[in-house]
């Protein structure tokens, strides 16, 4: 009886820490989004001195780093099926991004890449897109 009470308490604690970790990762994703977009707009439409520009550019990077840290913490409290789904999503996303960058590099050697479609900003977008493609594929595979 005591064993089952302990297991039940452990399960409730795990459930609570999962919820907290998930909530924190969502909050920091929103904070990252709320700093990335204004920083992009500011740097694009206003002219600042070099140090101020660097500081503005660093702000979303710092919030992104915190978001990734929280996301990794959230992964560690996920159940093993969800962890596998995330792992495969990241592998697929990383592989597709690496393939795109290699392809663009090879095209740039013969001057046929188009910066209007494949600038740094677009690469960030494609990176997220590929991660979500990986997530979708993996979720479908495991039915999770």
């Amino acid at each position, binding site marked *: 009886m005591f064993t089952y009470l302990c*297991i039940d308490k*452990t*399960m409730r604690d*795990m*459930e609570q820490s999962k919820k907290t970790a998930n909530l924190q990762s969502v909050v920091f994703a929103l904070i990252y989004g709320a700093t990335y977009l204004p920083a992009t707009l500011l740097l694009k439409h206003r002219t600042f001195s070099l140090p101020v520009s660097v500081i503005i550019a660093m702000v979303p990077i710092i919030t992104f780093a915190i978001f990734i840290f929280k996301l990794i913490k959230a992964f560690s409290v996920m*159940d*093993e*099926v*969800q962890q*596998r789904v995330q792992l495969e999503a990241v592998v697929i996303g990383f592989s597709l991004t690496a393939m795109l960058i290699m392809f663009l590099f090879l095209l740039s050697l013969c001057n046929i890449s188009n910066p209007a479609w494949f600038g740094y900003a677009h690469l960030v977008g494609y990176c997220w897109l590929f991660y979500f493609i990986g997530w979708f594929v993996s979720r479908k*595979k*495991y*039915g*999770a």
Partner: protein
Amino acid sequence: MKNTIKVERAKKNWTQADLAKNIGISRQGLNSIETGKFIPSTLLALRMAKVFNTTVEVLFQLDDEEELSND
């Protein structure tokens, strides 16, 4: 890998959600295991066996082609 999770669940009259809650995973995760799409870790298999008061060998069995031959 074959499993008898559905049978053991039926014996206890548990839904997937009930069992998932008891072993600390998501219902979708349990569904992946029950349908054989995902092979659980030893820890999770032992937890499942414990809540069903049975052994891992009863819950999970190797397919014929997965069995090692004695040759």
